[in-house]
C-alpha cells in the first residue's frame, strides 16, 4: 500500500477509470460529459424494437395491411381505406398505447428507485386502483361530474397523499409506504366494485374499460395531456437522475454525497404520480407495465445506472405488444390491453416475489 499519496502518477497506472463510457471534455471551458456506452446501445436497440412493434401494430389487425402499404400510407400515398384505418384507428391507438406504456414504466422506475424497492410501483401501491375508482365514479355518475380522465388524475393524487399520510413519510425502505398503498389500493378496488354493482348495467358497462385497462376508451384530451405530461415528466426525471443515482447507496452515504434525499423523493414521487395518473386516464389501470418495464430495462442496463429512458422505451414496447396481442387473439373481438398485460405480467411478478429480493439493488 502506497501511503505517500503524492507519488500517485497517472502515468504509472494506465487504468481506465471510465471504461464503458465516452468522455468529452471541452478544451475552453470546465465542461465535460461522460456518456455510458451501454445505455446508448440499449436505448438504440429498444428504440428499434419499439419501431418494429409500432409498424407491426399498424399493419396487423382485423384488416391486414402489408408493411409496404403501411409505409405508403404513412407517406400519404396509401388508399383511402388504408389511410382511414391508419390515421383514425390504429395510429392514435398506437400513440396512446406507446405513450401510456412509457409513462407507466417511467413512473415505476422512479418510484422503485425512491423506495429502493422493486415492488414499490404505482400499480402495486394502489395508485392505479384509486385513479380507476375516481374515473369510474365519474362514469357511473357518483359524486362530482368531472371528466373521467381528470378524475383519474385526482384519484392518483389523493391515493398518494393518503399513503403518505398513513405511512408518516416515504420511509427509507419504503415498506410502510407500500403497505399503506396496498391498503388504499384494496379499498379503492372495493369501492369500484360497489359502485359498479349498484348502478345500472349500461353505466357499469361504460365503466368497464376503466376497470381492466383498455386503449379503446381513450379521450383525445387525455392523450394530449399525457403527451405534455410525459415530455415534462421525462425531462424533469432526467434532471433528477443525478440525485437518483446516489439514492442507490445507503441513506447516510446518499446524504453525505450532498443529495437531499427527502426533497428528491418528494419530487420523484410527484412525477411518478403525475405520470401514472395521466397514463391511467388514457389506458386505465395497466399497472403491471410499471413493474415489467423497469425490470426489463434494469436487466439490460449497466449496473448502478437508473434506466429511465430504457424503462420508458420498454414500457412502450410492452404496452404496444400487449395491445396488439389483445386485438389479434380473438379478433374481431378484443381483449383489453390490461388483461393481456396482467396475464403476461403476473407470472413475472410471482417470480420476483419468490426469487428476487425486493431490494432494488440486489
Amino acid at each position, binding site marked *: *500500500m*502506497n*501511503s*505517500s*499519496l503524492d507519488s*500517485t502518477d*497517472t502515468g504509472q*497506472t494506465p*487504468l481506465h*477509470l*471510465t*471504461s464503458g*463510457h465516452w*468522455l468529452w*471534455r471541452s478544451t475552453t471551458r*470546465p*465542461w*465535460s*460529459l*461522460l456518456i455510458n456506452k451501454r445505455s446508448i446501445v440499449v436505448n438504440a436497440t429498444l428504440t428499434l424494437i419499439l419501431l418494429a412493434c409500432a409498424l407491426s401494430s399498424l399493419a396487423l389487425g382485423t384488416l391486414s395491411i402489408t408493411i409496404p402499404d403501411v409505409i405508403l400510407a404513412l407517406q400519404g400515398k396509401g388508399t383511402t381505406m388504408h389511410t382511414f384505418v391508419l390515421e383514425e384507428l390504429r395510429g392514435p391507438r398506437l400513440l396512446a398505447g406507446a405513450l401510456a406504456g412509457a409513462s407507466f414504466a417511467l413512473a415505476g422506475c422512479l418510484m422503485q428507485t425512491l423506495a429502493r424497492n422493486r415492488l414499490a410501483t404505482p400499480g402495486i401501491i394502489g395508485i392505479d386502483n384509486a385513479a380507476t375508482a375516481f374515473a369510474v365514479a365519474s362514469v357511473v355518475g357518483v359524486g362530482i361530474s368531472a371528466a373521467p380522465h381528470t378524475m383519474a388524475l385526482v384519484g392518483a393524487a389523493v391515493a398518494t397523499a393518503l399513503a403518505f399520510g398513513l405511512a408518516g413519510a416515504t420511509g427509507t425502505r419504503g415498506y410502510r409506504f407500500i403497505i399503506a398503498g396496498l391498503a388504499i389500493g384494496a379499498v379503492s378496488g372495493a369501492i369500484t366494485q360497489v359502485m359498479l354493482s349498484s348502478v345500472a348495467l349500461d353505466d357499469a358497462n361504460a365503466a368497464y374499460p376503466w376497470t381492466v385497462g383498455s386503449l379503446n376508451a381513450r379521450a383525445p384530451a387525455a392523450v394530449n395531456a399525457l403527451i405534455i405530461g410525459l415530455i415534462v415528466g421525462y425531462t424533469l426525471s432526467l*434532471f433528477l437522475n*443525478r440525485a437518483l*443515482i*446516489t439514492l*442507490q*447507496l*445507503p*441513506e*447516510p*452515504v446518499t*446524504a*453525505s*454525497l*450532498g*443529495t*437531499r434525499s427527502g426533497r428528491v423523493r418528494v419530487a420523484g414521487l410527484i412525477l411518478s404520480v403525475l405520470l401514472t395518473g395521466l397514463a391511467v386516464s388514457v389506458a386505465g389501470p395497466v399497472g403491471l407495465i410499471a413493474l415489467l418495464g423497469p425490470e426489463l430495462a434494469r436487466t439490460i442496463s449497466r*449496473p*448502478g445506472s437508473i434506466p429511465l429512458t430504457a424503462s420508458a422505451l420498454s414500457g412502450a414496447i410492452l404496452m404496444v405488444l400487449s395491445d396488439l396481442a389483445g386485438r389479434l387473439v380473438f379478433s374481431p373481438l378484443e381483449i383489453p390491453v390490461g388483461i393481456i398485460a396482467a396475464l403476461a405480467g403476473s407470472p413475472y411478478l410471482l417470480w420476483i416475489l419468490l426469487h428476487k429480493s425486493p431490494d*432494488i*439493488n*440486489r
Partner: protein
Amino acid sequence: MNQFMTMSKINSPRAPLAAQSLMMSHGPHTIIPHLDIELRTGEVTAIVGPNGCGKSTLLNGLARIHKPRQGTIVLDGADIHTLPARDVARKLALLPQDNSAPEGLTVTDLIRFGRHPHQSWLSQWSEDDERAVRKALTAADVGDLANRPLDTLSGGQRQRAWIAMSIAQETQLLLLDEPTSALDLGHQIEVFELIRTLASQGNTTKSSPPM
C-alpha cells in the same frame, strides 16, 4: 444511558467542525445527553466506546444526517443545517458502518460516486475527478481490484473500496465509522496509517475504531 466515550478534545478558535450542547436521541431515548466537541484539520480524533454507546449516532449527527434534539453543529462558522447540502458534501464526508451497493457495481464505479458533490450536469468527469479517483484507488490499495464488481470481493476488500470512495470525495473532514472492522490486522494498520497521512495532508479524520 451508559456512556463511555473518550475523545481528544482540542480547543481551537479555527475548528472547522464543532458541536455545542449537542443532544442526540432516537425517539424517546436520549443517546447523547450533552456534548461539546471541536474537530480541527490536520488531526485524527478517535471516538472510543462500547457497542451501543452512541458513536454512530454522534457521527450521523455531525454529518447532519440525524438531526440533533438540541444544540448546534457548526461547519466552517455556519450552522450545518443552514448550509446547502452540496457545500457540506464538499467539506465533510461520512462513511457509515454498514454499507451496501447495487449489484454488479465495480470498485471504480463506487469510488466515482465520491466525486458526486464536485460534479454537475455540465461537469460530469473533470480532470480533478480523474485525479482524485486515481489517488483514492492507490491510497486505499484497491488499484488491483479497480474493475472487479463489489460483490466478488472479500469483506475487507470491499471495506477498502468504500474508504476509497470517501477519500475520493476530497473533503477536509472525513468521518469514518469503524472503518477497520472487517479488515485483517495488516490492513487495519495500513488504514490507520492512511488516515494519519490524510490528516497530515490537511484532512481532519475522525473515526470510531472498534476496540
